[in-house]
Structure formats: structure tokens, C-alpha cells
């Protein structure tokens, strides 16, 4: 029976797992030619910041309802996408799972990789019908993981998610950048993305929650380090993204300056972590220093986002000023 394995599709973890997976899949399919930081910026993923009250490691992927958060970014690239996901405890999960297995195989036949929540996000790059398995890359090991069709979507988090891509329409660069700034503003302003759960804060509020957790001393050690690592990486991505884009508007030059300063702070923040057993962990006495640095960082980002606001106000925003009948969230 058939075996399909996509060649030259390699995913490696550098940034947020979704960005790494997306970059691998789109680059392989020829739908995107550019660096990871450019992708992270255009899709708005770089600007996302979410922090759990106790700095749990799951914070890094808890930036909102995945379907919606990712959709806005993919739309901005002009790429057609189909995705499905939800909770595995729903009684109907089995039906959606079998359905997903079949369309994932079809897309692999068409030569495009599939984003899959392992956890975290990874890439399905092949299948074998005789063994009934998928080959999944998690970005860490050299060997792909083996996933039975029957186990598709099953993992300890209770969530499942997979996404495929299709054709692309052309979107002018200026529009893309403008929309990405608007996504950034949205992410900064909205405090809770996973209501009714108020344990996870996003954007501006995430900074406050983070600082509080550090000062209280009640937080998860590995989570704190992971959040900090991810944060540093994403802020550097924003810096590089704006560096490339600053020619478009003068305000972007000023926003970039804020992130340049933030870059210096990030070096300080990185100093608050040490490596132990091949893992990064927080230094015991560095929490106050980090909390202080975060306060300064928050002020810098606030200023940068205000510059984004200035830019955004110059152009009409049809997407957000025309609220459809069912409200701002998609009809799902």
C-alpha cells in the first residue's frame, strides 16, 4: 500500500512552536520565502504574549483560541487554510478525528505538510497506509515520531489541532505590515483571551501578572524559564521585523528604536537564567532584577504600540470597524 514522505521538509524549534511549524510547511510548499522572524511578524505571532498567574509552561501556547488566533495571521499572508481541532473529550471527537485523518492524507498526497498539535505544534510530513501511521516532526529530535491513525489528536493536554494550507493570493507588503501592526495592537490591548479563565493574561496585562508572580515567589520554575526564553526570542523577532519594515512609515522608525532599547534589556534578562543539565532555569536571586526589567520593557512596548496606533489611524480599518452580525469572533 502507499507510503508518502515529503522530502526536504525539516522543522526545527527556535521560536514559538507554531511559527517553527508554519515556517517549515510554507517554505517547503513554496508559499513563503523569507526568514522566520518575517513570518512571525507578518502573522502577528511574534507580538503575542501570554502568561499564566503561576508561570506555568503552557502559557507559551495559551495565547487564545488557536483557530482564531492563527487564522488572522494566515489571512494576512493571503493563504487558504483548513483547520480543525477542539477537545478530545467531546463525544463527537471520533468522527472528526477519522475525517481529519483522511484530509491530512489527501494534503500530504498533494505535497504539502500539515501542522499538528503533538504537543507542542509539530509537522506531519508523511504517512504509511500499511502500518496506518503518520510521521511527525517535533523540531527537537532527528528521528520523526510515529503516530497511529487511531491515536491522531490524542495527547495529555486534552486538545487536538491540525491545519493544512492551499493556494495563495497576493497581498501587497504595505497592507501586510499594516495589518500585522493592527494585530499587535489588539494583542496588547486585550487582557484575557481565554475567558472565562482569568488565570492567563495577555498583552499589557501579561507583564503585570508576570511581575506579580515573580515577586510573590509562587511560580513554576521550568515554566518561568520557558516563558522568559520564548519572550526574549519573540521580542528579538519583532525588532528584526521592524528593522526591515521601517522604511514604510516614519513612526515605524521610532517604534523600532523602542525595540532596540528593549533588546538591551533582553540581554539583562537573559542573564537571569542559567543553564543546568542542558535546561535553562531561573537564577534564585534574580527574580527582583527580572521584575524590574519587565517594568521597563512594558513601558517601552507601550510606547511602541502607541506609534503603531498612530500609523493605524491614518488608514481605514474595514475589518474591525464593520462588526458583522455575529460579533467580532468568527461564527463557530
Amino acid at each position, binding site marked *: 500500500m502507499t*507510503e508518502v514522505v515529503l522530502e526536504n521538509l525539516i522543522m526545527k524549534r527556535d521560536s514559538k512552536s507554531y511559527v517553527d511549524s508554519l515556517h517549515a510547511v510554507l517554505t517547503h510548499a513554496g508559499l513563503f520565502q523569507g526568514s522566520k522572524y518575517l513570518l512571525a511578524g507578518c502573522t502577528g505571532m511574534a507580538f503575542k504574549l501570554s502568561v499564566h498567574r503561576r508561570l*506555568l*509552561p503552557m502559557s507559551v501556547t495559551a495565547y487564545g483560541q488557536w483557530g482564531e488566533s492563527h487564522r488572522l495571521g494566515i489571512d494576512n499572508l493571503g493563504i487558504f487554510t483548513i483547520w480543525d481541532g477542539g477537545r*478530545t*473529550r467531546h*463525544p463527537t*471527537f*471520533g468522527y472528526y*478525528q477519522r475525517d481529519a485523518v483522511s484530509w491530512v492524507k489527501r494534503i500530504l498526497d498533494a505535497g504539502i505538510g500539515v501542522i499538528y498539535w503533538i504537543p507542542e505544534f509539530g509537522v506531519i510530513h508523511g504517512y*504509511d497506509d*500499511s*502500518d496506518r*501511521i503518520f*510521521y511527525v516532526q517535533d523540531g527537537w529530535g532527528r*528521528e520523526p515520531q*510515529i503516530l*497511529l491513525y*487511531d*491515536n491522531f489528536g*490524542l495527547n*495529555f493536554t*486534552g486538545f487536538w489541532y491540525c491545519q493544512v494550507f492551499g493556494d495563495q493570493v497576493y497581498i501587497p507588503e504595505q497592507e501586510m505590515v499594516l495589518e500585522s501592526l493592527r494585530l499587535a495592537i489588539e494583542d496588547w490591548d486585550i487582557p484575557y483571551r481565554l475567558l472565562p479563565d482569568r488565570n492567563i493574561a495577555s498583552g499589557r496585562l501579561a507583564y503585570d501578572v508576570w511581575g506579580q508572580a515573580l515577586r510573590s515567589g509562587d511560580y*513554576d*520554575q*521550568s*515554566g518561568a524559564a520557558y516563558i522568559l526564553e520564548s519572550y526574549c526570542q519573540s521580542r528579538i523577532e519583532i525588532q528584526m521585523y521592524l528593522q526591515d519594515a521601517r522604511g514604510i512609515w516614519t513612526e515605524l522608525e521610532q517604534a523600532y528604536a523602542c525595540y532596540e532599547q528593549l533588546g538591551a534589556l533582553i540581554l539583562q534578562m537573559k542573564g537571569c537564567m542559567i543553564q543546568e543539565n542542558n535546561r535553562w532555569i531561573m537564577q534564585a536571586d534574580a527574580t527582583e532584577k527580572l521584575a524590574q526589567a519587565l517594568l521597563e520593557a512594558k513601558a517601552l512596548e507601550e510606547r511602541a504600540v502607541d506609534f503603531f496606533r498612530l500609523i493605524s489611524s491614518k488608514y481605514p480599518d474595514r475589518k474591525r470597524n464593520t462588526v458583522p452580525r455575529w460579533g467580532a469572533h468568527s461564527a463557530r
Partner: protein
Amino acid sequence: MSNLHRIHWFDEQIRSGRFPNSSWLAREFEISRRQAQRDIEYMAISLRAPLVYIAKYRGYCYEDQTYRLPHLYMTEEEQRVLKYLAHRYRHYNYDQSDAVKRVAHLLERFTLEEQQTGSSQLPVFRADPQQLQFFEILSHAIAESRKVHIHYRDHAGERQFTWCPLKMLSQFNADYVVGYEMDPLQQTAIRLEGMIHVQMTNETFQCQTDGLLGAWEEALPVRKPFVAEIKLKEVQQTELWQGYRIREQKDKVHWIEFYDTDAFLQHLFISEWEELLSPTWLRRKLQQSAEGIIERLARSTRQT
């Protein structure tokens, strides 16, 4: 048992050669002498400590110097609590369910080992003593296929009925027992919380549970194992091949289930088998490993 600390103290006193007696114990912990006497009796009888009273020193010592208090000892009551918790943990399917299920497995063996859960938080359950009691009774009834008489209260009012319990279930933070009143095909689940009184009767019932319980099995999907098709030298007579479950067999070809790939690969390296027929990805992995080893061996022989 609340006298744990007193027992330990008494034991320490003995082992340091101080010949403690019941008055000391009473004085130390401000209990009555009678109570202290009961503690000592408990040690001697239930814990089987080789206590002997030495009149010369007016105190106790151990006849057998090598005796050690059992590190972990539990009363019937504690065992029941652990059994109940194991049941709840086993049915927990939300956050950290893997870690929680491992805990359940351990609790099932009635040990009190410190479980290193690290950063994960174990869920906390209220163990209502009355519900524990009902759980006990119902578990017995299920084991012996005995009918129970239940006095039940819910939004529809109070009622009493005789019932045939089949299985205990725990979902969404509540305990249920699945069973039927008259017709084995009309099963319902009732909550332990709603029970006012449960009594086992002497009547038994017959029920083929396997097929019928299908509807009440955990609705949650369970991870399926990988299956390797292996030809062994002899047909296996038992259900297991060196610890791994045999799902099916046809002559010498056995379909073996496994979850952990690395462990199974290791197992294939050290055990006897004739052919690995499938899956292809496992054959490939095994081949790569084997080739890697052969290459490394060749390297060393080249050097000598």
C-alpha cells in the same frame, strides 16, 4: 492512626535503651495511662513488636534486637481511603492525567511512597466518609454480584429500591454507580451523593456485563498501542510474551502490543524471535540500530 507519632517515640526510646513504660508515654504526650497502655498493646499485637517488660528497669525493650517498626503501616480505614483515592485518580482524565494515572497505579499497591510530581499539581478530592462507606458496600456488592437496597434522594424526591450494581464510575468530579433495577438492558447511573442509605442484600443476580457496559465505558478515547507482527519459535500458550500482551496469534505468528517504542526495541534486541514481519517503520528502526552497532564494532576491530 493518630497514635503514629507516639508509637514512633516509644520505639525510639526503646532503641536508645531507655526502657520506657506506659507512665512515661502518658506523661510525654499528656494522655491517660490507660491510653498509653492501649498504644503499647497495639504495638505488641497489631505491629507484632517483640516487646518484653524488664522488671529490673521497669520498662520495655525488644526481645529481638533486629526488630524494626514497619515504615509504612496502615489501618483498615486508611487502606480504604487509599483505595477510594486510587479509584478517583484512575478515572481522572483532565490535566496531567498521565501523571495522575501513575499515582493511581501506585496507590493501588497501597504504598505511601512519596510521589515526585514535580511541578504538576495533583487534583484534590473530597473524600466524604459516608460516600466512602457507600463505595465500599457497592464495591463488595459488585464483586459478589449481590443486589443492594438503596434509599435515594434527588430532585424527583425520595425513593427506595432494590438494585443490581455493575460498575463504579467517576466522571466530572462525582461518583456514579452503574446498574439496573429490573431489566439488564436498561442501565442507569446513579450518584453516590444522592444516596441516603445503602444496604447489601443476600440476593444475588446474574449479569453478562461485558457487552452491556459498553455504553458506560469512559467516553474518553484511549490511546491505542502499536502492534508488531512477530514470528516466534513456538506458539505461546499464555496471553503474554515476556510481559507484552499478545493481541492475536495464528500458528507461530503473534501480534504483540506495545506502547513504548524504545523499550520494545531494547526488548527485541535481547529476546528470542524468528522474524519481525511488521510494522515497516519498526523494522527500519531496528535495522538502523543494528547497523549502527555493527559499524561501531567494525571500527574497533579495524583498530586492533
